[in-house]
């Protein structure tokens, strides 16, 4: 009650906190009330007296007439920031917060206290109701409540143990930045900002997930991005109504254009440099708190076959590597099915010596080539999956079992022909060349229907399968952008950066269709030879 007096003298607020009108109460039952004790009781009851919620009640003022409470979540809030930026300020303003020397305590101005705390903290938010309070509290902010005041203050003291910026684990490069995103949204946005220091790099944040209240940020470069796509992203995010968002994969499934496809239509990466490059092409990044994987839309088929390093190595090296990658993705898709088709339907296509070799190996094999291939492919997938989930130190055991049991024993037992082992191994290795995991999985899954087609119709079946696959790919869109562009529709300008990567001084245009705004990347000329 005494705090009230001080407050009144500051003309801070005309609202009378003690006498809330019944109408107002009815309107907003979640609103904070003036009584500190009531508020704290309500908070504790709502949080189920959770033990990691710290509530400190302090009496301040000359006669300890004013009660304030400091609330924070242990572990999420940074204790050093609380003591430096809040406790010390309170001590400064009120003399002594603990009140051991009553003489030193002086009467204070609650408004001044508020302002002082606001000045010392980077993030300050006024809190009017409980949902806001809980969100701030559980995000790691420190809440200040004062008896007799119907609003609180949230000071940004988020600071928890996180992994920090570590090296990339999924997308490694020989040359290029090594840093990867971490689980903290703020760190991640900072990593992107550090690459693009432009006022046009805009960011919007919202909470998605009824229970998890996960922070989701979308980032884009205003002026380059296609506003319609931004609008579309906002709308799709708005539509998500779900309890929890624990990883960006949740968002991906909700916002992708077509669900019935093995191909990913949303790109994800853990590399800040990739995100920066994509933003500069006019794409939009969706950053989700709690995961190092940032989503990028719209995603094109070619992006999944491009690695970050393509832009860091010289153009000829990159082009060579890209051709290699397109080749290996074809092998990973068609390897076993071509083998099946040629050995069971089109033996006349084989060179004679090779035919003898293959036929000699198959002499004692009891199964048709198709069964053999499926057996080996499935075995390989099992091995691969086991290797991913296993702790690192047991991983080597799997490879021993894999090579010995599958590779050698199966051949010697006469179940599998050595040629099939070769085909499956080449296919497996090729599928790992694809830089993006979800794209390589897509191709690995499609291998099986193609094998079945090859086993029943030979090369004819394979071509029917490829045509069907092409039609499907052509029908895909990612946020309205044709998935196969710039191949279909064919954009000549876009070919400079698809299968080949021409030198940077020739890449003067941003990809069409993705962004319509500012098409010109730069006006530049090739490096000149010196006159001397």
């Amino acid at each position, binding site marked *: 009650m005494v705090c009230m007096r001080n407050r009144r003298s500051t003309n801070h607020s005309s609202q009378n906190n003690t006498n809330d009108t019944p109408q107002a109460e009815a309107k907003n039952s979640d609103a904070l009330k003036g009584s500190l004790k009531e508020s704290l009781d309500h908070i504790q009851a709502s949080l189920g007296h959770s033990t990691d919620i710290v509530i400190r009640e302090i009496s301040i003022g000359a006669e300890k007439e004013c009660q304030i409470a400091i609330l924070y979540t242990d572990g999420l809030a940074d204790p050093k920031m609380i003591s430096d930026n809040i406790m010390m300020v309170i001590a400064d303003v009120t003399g002594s917060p603990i009140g051991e020397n009553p003489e030193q305590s002086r009467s204070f101005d609650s408004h001044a206290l508020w302002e002082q705390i606001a000045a010392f903290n980077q993030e300050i938010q006024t809190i009017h109701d409980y949902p806001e309070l809980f969100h701030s509290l559980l995000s790691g902010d420190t809440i200040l409540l004062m008896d007799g005041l119907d609003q609180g203050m949230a000071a940004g003291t988020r600071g928890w143990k996180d992994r920090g910026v570590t090296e990339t684990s999924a997308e490694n490069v020989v040359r290029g930045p090594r840093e990867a995103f971490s689980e903290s949204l703020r760190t991640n946005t900072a990593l992107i900002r550090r690459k693009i220091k432009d006022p046009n790099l805009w960011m919007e944040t919202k909470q998605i997930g009824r229970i998890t209240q996960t922070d989701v940020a979308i980032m884009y470069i205003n002026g380059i991005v296609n506003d319609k796509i931004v609008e579309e992203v906002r709308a799709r995010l708005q539509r998500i109504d779900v309890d929890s968002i624990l990883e960006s994969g949740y968002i991906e499934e909700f916002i992708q254009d077509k669900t019935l496809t093995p191909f990913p239509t949303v790109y994800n990466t853990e590399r800040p440099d990739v995100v920066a490059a994509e933003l500069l092409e006019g794409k939009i990044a969706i950053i989700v708190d709690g995961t190092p994987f940032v989503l990028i839309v719209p995603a094109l088929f070619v992006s999944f076959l491009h690695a970050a390093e393509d832009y860091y190595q010289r153009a000829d090296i990159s082009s060579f590597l890209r051709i290699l990658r397109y080749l290996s993705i074809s092998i990973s898709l068609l390897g076993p099915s071509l083998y099946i088709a040629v050995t*069971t*339907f089109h*033996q006349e296509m084989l060179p*004679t010596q090779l035919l*003898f*070799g293959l*036929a000699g190996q*198959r002499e004692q094999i009891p199964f048709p*080539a198709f069964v053999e291939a499926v057996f080996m492919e499935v075995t390989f997938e099992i091995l691969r999956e086991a290797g991913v989930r296993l702790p690192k130190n047991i991983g080597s055991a799997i490879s021993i079992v894999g090579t010995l049991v599958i590779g050698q024993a199966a051949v010697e037992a006469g179940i599998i022909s050595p040629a099939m082992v070769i085909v499956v191994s080449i296919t497996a290795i090729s599928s790992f060349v694809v830089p993006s995991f979800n794209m390589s999985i897509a191709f690995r899954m499609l291998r099986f229907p193609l094998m079945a087609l090859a086993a029943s119709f*030979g090369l004819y079946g394979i071509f029917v399968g490829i045509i069907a696959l092409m039609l499907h790919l052509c029908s895909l869109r990612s946020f309205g952008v044709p998935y196969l562009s710039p191949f279909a529709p064919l954009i000549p300008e876009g070919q400079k950066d698809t299968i080949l990567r021409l030198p940077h001084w020739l890449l003067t245009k941003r990809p069409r269709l993705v962004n319509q705004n500012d098409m010109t990347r730069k006006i530049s000329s090739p490096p000149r030879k010196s006159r001397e």
Partner: protein
Amino acid sequence: MNRRKKILAMILLQTVIALLLSSCWNRRELNELAIAVGAGVDWVDNQYRLSVQVAIPGQVTSKRGASTQAPATLYTAEGDTIFEAARRMTQISPRKIYFSHLRIFLMDEAMAREGVAKVLDLLARDHEFRPDFYLAITKGTTAEEALKIMTPMETIPANKLFNSLQISDKSWSSSMVVTLDELINGITSTGKHPVLTGLMVTGDKKIGEDKKNVEDIYTPSQLQYSGLAVFKFDKLIGWLNEKDSRGYRLIRGDVKSSVGYVSCRNKGKVVLETLRTDTKLKGRLVDSRPELDIKVSLEGNIGSVECSGLDLTEPSTIRQLEVDMEEKVTKILEDVIDKVQTEHKVDIFGFGEAFHRSHPKTWKRIEQEWDDRYFTSLVTHVSVDYKIRGTGTTNDSFLNDLKE
């Protein structure tokens, strides 16, 4: 709208089912095939005798030392037609015989004299034959016997036949690669008659069929190409020996590489390795009678010098060698032309075709009588140009320094 969709779905469904029901009609696993590598047809008692050499892949690729089984096996069947004989073979073969990888197709002399066209139609018509196998005529033996001979190095005899024909075609030029389409072209053309390489079995055939043939370093019985069989249309009428065969191939202009020698002034020989050859046939009309210019240009290196007193650094010496060689080649060419004109009386050189090219209108008039009237008395003008391009890795032979 909905109805149309339903109809469309039904059509789609039926298409898919039709595809599935057709099953894998042409599916053959590799271990369900008997891969034929060599085949031969003999004419025995007015019947065809078809012999097929089938490779046994397990034996070909086995690494565990010498096994007791031969790398190939031979199936023989007789029939009024070849197709029948081939199907009759299933009575003895455990698997269906698969002809796509046929390497060599042999016919014996009796068959060739009877006429090969009837045989060739099957080979050209059946989808399973890939027309990249070679054809040859067995000389002094039957095709069946030739296919029984065991060969060292190339464990499958048909492979040996294929490879050695290919190699000798390229670097010795007396035998000649002829594929099915070339042979059929030769048979049907009016301006050129076909030839086929001859194949002989040397040594004792009985040992040749036995495993003993490949057990020792010395191979008692060999399969050897020798000379060319001359055909009139599809019927064999005679043979060219090795020397004539080389002359013939030079006129045909398809010699890739060969070896020849000229005699030195003092005793000995100089061997020349021919590296490139080019032949131009040009017809002309002299007093309304056809005549033919044959221009052969050859390039070669000195392969070896087997006489002393030859100064190879002197351009005049080289020129002398060239002139000697030109004379010699001219002689060879004239000999073979003369021999064919008098003995065989069929235009195997393609002179008619050459004349056709240069004088298409006159050709139409004389086409029918070419073989009988014009070819035998055709006047040919042979001119040979030999160029020595190199002397190998040395200049003068050390034989010059040899003190005797």
